[in-house]
């Protein structure tokens, strides 16, 4: 076969499996026996042509994240006790406090990391899932790029959790001033972790499998 022709072929079409971790190419066995796993000769990981049950796993993780997203935003992420009086703070209130203090660049960063990024991840990953379900032909390059961005920015949402950790560690002056973590922080951390896993289990190659050119 000419190399120009080979250039338009995927590994799967060529009867090869690329290892997910070390990218070694392995021949797909002609007849696969049930329940036998194929291992990568280089790194010994289990080989799959596509991530198994990728769409199911990703949808389940996204759904769980969506449910937890509500308490994450309604419940206080921390309670600030100042001179005996307690004041619960939600994520949005935390952003507003920064804004009131005149710290708009930081307020913007926290707003993006804690509010925009989680919503964006939920919406974009769901959109990608739907586009694959309905075999969308819409710009696969853009969809793959969107996926890569989602995978990259997800971890920055952890910034609020770390802020709470630092504040709780530092501000412990009894009744005068103390900060305690709230249940909202727990739900929010779970949302971040679940959407990160959702991005991990999503297989962008499925976008391309649907394309008929």
């Amino acid at each position, binding site marked *: 076969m000419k190399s120009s022709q080979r*250039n338009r072929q995927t590994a799967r079409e060529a009867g090869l499996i690329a290892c997910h*971790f070390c990218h*070694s190419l392995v021949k797909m066995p002609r007849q696969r026996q049930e329940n036998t796993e194929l291992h990568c000769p280089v*790194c010994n990981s289990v080989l799959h042509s596509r991530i198994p049950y990728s769409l199911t796993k990703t949808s389940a993780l996204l759904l769980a994240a969506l449910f937890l997203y509500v308490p994450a935003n309604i419940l206080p992420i921390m309670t600030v006790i100042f001179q005996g009086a307690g004041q619960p703070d939600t994520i949005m209130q935390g952003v507003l406090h920064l804004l009131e203090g005149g710290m708009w660049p930081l307020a913007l960063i926290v707003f993006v990391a804690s509010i925009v990024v989680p919503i964006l991840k939920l919406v974009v990953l769901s959109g990608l899932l739907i586009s694959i379900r309905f075999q969308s032909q819409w710009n696969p390059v853009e969809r793959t790029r969107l996926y890569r961005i989602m995978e990259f920015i997800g971890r920055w949402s952890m*910034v609020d959790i770390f802020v709470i950790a630092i504040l709780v560690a530092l501000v412990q002056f009894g009744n005068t001033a103390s900060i305690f973590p709230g249940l909202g922080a*727990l739900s929010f951390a779970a949302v971040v972790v679940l959407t990160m896993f959702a991005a991990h289990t999503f297989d962008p190659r499925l976008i391309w499998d649907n394309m008929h050119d």
Partner: protein
Amino acid sequence: MSSSSHCNSLTLRACPDCDLLQELPCSQAGHAIYCVRCGHLLKKTCHDSLNRSLAFALTGIFLFILANSFPFISLSALGIEQDSSLFSASWAFYQMDRPFLAILVLFTTIIFPLLSLIGMVIVLIAVKMKRIQRTLIAPLFRFLMSTDAWGMLEVFLLAVLVAVVKLGDMADIVIGVSMYAFIALIIVLTLLSLSLDPEDVWQELRKGVKQ
């Protein structure tokens, strides 16, 4: 096919993001190569990737120890001083009965960053010495690559900045020695991830395996 792994020829790769097969030139110091169909970065451009990465990883371990040895920030109010180290951030959650958050912070700010630095040194030294025990080194490197997203020190640094601003007007804040070590560590970690091309390590590990 000859078993010699000196390749002046092309290597066949499947793009991890779109599965398209394409041939990459095997030269060590070429330019960066992107997937022709989806634009995924297939090969970085760095020269001498392994040596540089090893130097960065060793520096990183030293800075990591330094950053964890002293408090990086302290707060004084009412004549009482409170300080915080990296570890006390996760310890605070544990004491407040939030074990899940404590474990999450512990893993993302201490365990994964430390493991990835130590693991990287082990892998790179093994590859350099040409004494590769593939059954150990390959799974170790695989683990390092797959947990890469979970080390979040640079996110933590942003959080320190936000916390300092939030506390700024109510108390006196003193930045500790560890803070500088911590900032240097983030820079070194960034340089490490920029210089290391995992493909160079896999290429070494692939030698002698029948395909």
